[in-house]
């Protein structure tokens, strides 16, 4: 299963005056699990449909293993799709559904039956081959859809939110299985989702999309820990964002000194050599809380506003003296988890975890809508 390299070259799709996909470029290497992550309407599904051949790009090119496939019909591409609602043929049983595409690969009867058997074994549905799709659970239908696409040995498998219709428990199980399956078959997976935890769990690389553009591409860890801008920081998990002013720009060796309200902080992450107005971002799990009397570096004093038990951890909302509220995630048994509302604390924002992001309100519709006053820190939803 060599190959599976996909190049998107300035791909654009307009519907009338609306620009759904706005000139995206990407290099996807063979055998990679590549996720397109973004909110609904960001153009990720349109991108996938152009890859599958259901939509014709307005401009730009799609290159698959060195061949331009931009204008080929869906049946002429070595690309198969697992649809969001599976689209299993209701009048065929599981075996016939999986065998559907093999007719076009001119296989012998024996080979068809062998490959269908292998594909069903791969998704552990062997005993169900005689059932109709309506007699299967959502998770089983999803596996049939997967087998139906994989049996054709495509160069690239496209998955359009395939876990979207399943319950949370089933989704977690299938996430792990899907990733294991992808490693076993070694096919390039291009996975569309709006669920950041899904993308983080499975992907080799994630492309975060917003308004028809790719905002950042990188490994899950990199995208999560080093978001390129406030939008990515906000979309991938919970981020505390706050406005600040750079006092002394930093460099590779020296942290950047910023003023958040009346408090001076050091930050080592992000664009440390920025000047002027910036945004600071920090993950709730990186914020540490200390008693009011302790002497802590890089901290802002505040009051505990609310404590929320989340199950695996406790979330503490702290209203900082800078006039804003941030979240901290603390261990359930820790001292901080037991502080009642109104307790004075110090919220430490370690320089290594504090990131300086360019301040570009136009790039962030969420921020515009929230209309946070300057100098305010806003806990992301």
């Amino acid at each position: 299963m060599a190959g599976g390299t996909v190049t998107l070259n300035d791909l654009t799709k307009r519907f009338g005056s609306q620009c759904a996909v706005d000139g995206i470029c990407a290099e996807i290497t063979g055998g990679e699990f590549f996720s397109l992550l973004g909110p609904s309407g960001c153009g990720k599904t349109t991108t996938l449909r152009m890859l599958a051949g259901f939509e014709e790009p307005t401009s730009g090119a799609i290159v698959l293993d060195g061949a331009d496939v931009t204008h080929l019909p869906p049946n002429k591409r070595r690309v198969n799709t697992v649809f969001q609602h599976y689209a299993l043929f209701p009048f065929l049983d599981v075996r016939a559904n999986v065998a559907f595409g093999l007719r076009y690969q001119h296989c012998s009867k024996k080979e068809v039956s062998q490959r269908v058997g292998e594909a069903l074994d791969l998704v552990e549905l062997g005993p169900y081959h005689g059932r109709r799709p309506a007699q299967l659970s959502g998770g089983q239908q999803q596996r049939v859809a997967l087998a139906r696409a994989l049996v054709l040995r495509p160069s690239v498998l496209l998955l359009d939110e395939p876990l979207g219709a399943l319950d949370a428990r089933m989704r977690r199980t299938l996430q792990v299985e899907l990733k294991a399956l992808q490693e076993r078959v070694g096919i390039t997976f291009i996975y569309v989702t709006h669920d950041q935890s899904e993308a983080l769990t499975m992907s080799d690389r994630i492309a975060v999309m917003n308004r028809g553009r790719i905002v950042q591409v990188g490994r899950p860890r990199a995208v999560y820990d080093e978001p390129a801008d406030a939008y990515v920081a906000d979309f991938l998990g919970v981020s505390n964002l706050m406005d600040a002013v750079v006092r002394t720009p930093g460099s590779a060796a020296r942290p950047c000194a910023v003023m958040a309200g009346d408090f001076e902080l050091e930050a080592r992450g992000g664009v440390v050599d920025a000047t002027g107005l910036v945004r600071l971002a920090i993950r709730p799990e990186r914020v540490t809380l200390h008693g009011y009397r302790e002497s802590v570096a890089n901290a802002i004093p505040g009051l505990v506003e609310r404590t929320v038990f989340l199950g695996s951890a406790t979330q503490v909302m702290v209203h900082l003296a800078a006039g804003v509220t941030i979240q901290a995630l603390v261990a359930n048994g820790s001292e901080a988890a037991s502080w009642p509302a109104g307790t004075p604390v110090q919220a430490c924002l370690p320089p290594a975890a504090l990131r300086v992001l360019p301040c570009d309100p136009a790039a962030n519709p969420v921020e515009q809508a929230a209309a946070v006053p300057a100098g305010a820190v806003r806990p992301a939803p």
Partner: protein
Amino acid sequence: MTGGSLAPSAATRVALPGISRLGRIRRLRRPSILRGFVWLYLVWSLAPVALAILFSFNSGSSVTEWQGFSLRWYVGDPYYSVLHDPALHQAVIQTVRLAVLTTVVAVPIGVLFAIGVHRWRSRQASAWTFVMLLAFVMPELIFGVGIFLLLTNLLTFIRLGTTAQFLALVAWNISWPAIIVRARLQSIGAHYEEAARDLGASATGAIRRVLLPLLFPAIFASVVLVFAGVIDDFVIVDLLSSNAQSEPMSVIIYTLGAHGGSAAAPALNALATVMLVMSIVTVAAGWAVYRRLTRGERRRDEGLSLGPLTGA
């Protein structure tokens, strides 16, 4: 025993107000006068039909006095039975011929029309859909007279008779499959076809292997409705018939029944019974098969079922 008898009485006492309230509602909803009216209506409308059927099995030639059961008017009588009277015999054949021909031609055209209009999606397409719907609201008599005038004045090379009847019936019946199939196309959506294309099928292959099987219940429903509709049709076939050879059952029953003629009255009753049974059997068989075809869909409501025949 005491415990056993106490428990239900306590339950009854608790539930009493609810029961009496329900009872009052029931009485209000189904007053006996309405029930009586329904029965009266059923007797009034069905009694003549029942009598006609009954006397078609009469051994005598009376349609008022029962003289014993026989199949005389169906097969027995050498001159007047449906089997042996050439006019009646011919009428059955003509009805079946028109029904089969019309169904075979009108349904495929209607299905293709529905698929075409469904993909076309333009102002012209909606205009054509409107024309299709027009057939439902236009009185059949107007349509029949229009075709009659067209054929007798302009297209005179088409003679009145079977050809004219067939052409008019096809035009009149295309709207059934067109509208039923269109409705089902809308509930099917595009994703099954996209899946087929994705798996390697060409555009026509996707229609043949995926769309047609999905449309089959709707196509089948159309076949039943068109077939039964042609059996029952009177206005068009009467206007466009030329001689006794092209008169189907409905026309024979009307002319001989209303104006008298050579055929015996019980034989006409027998012919009417044949016509009725054909219609009922077609619709009943169609309903049963449709239920069977869409069984899986109704059990797990996948948003695919369309109930022109299920009545649900």
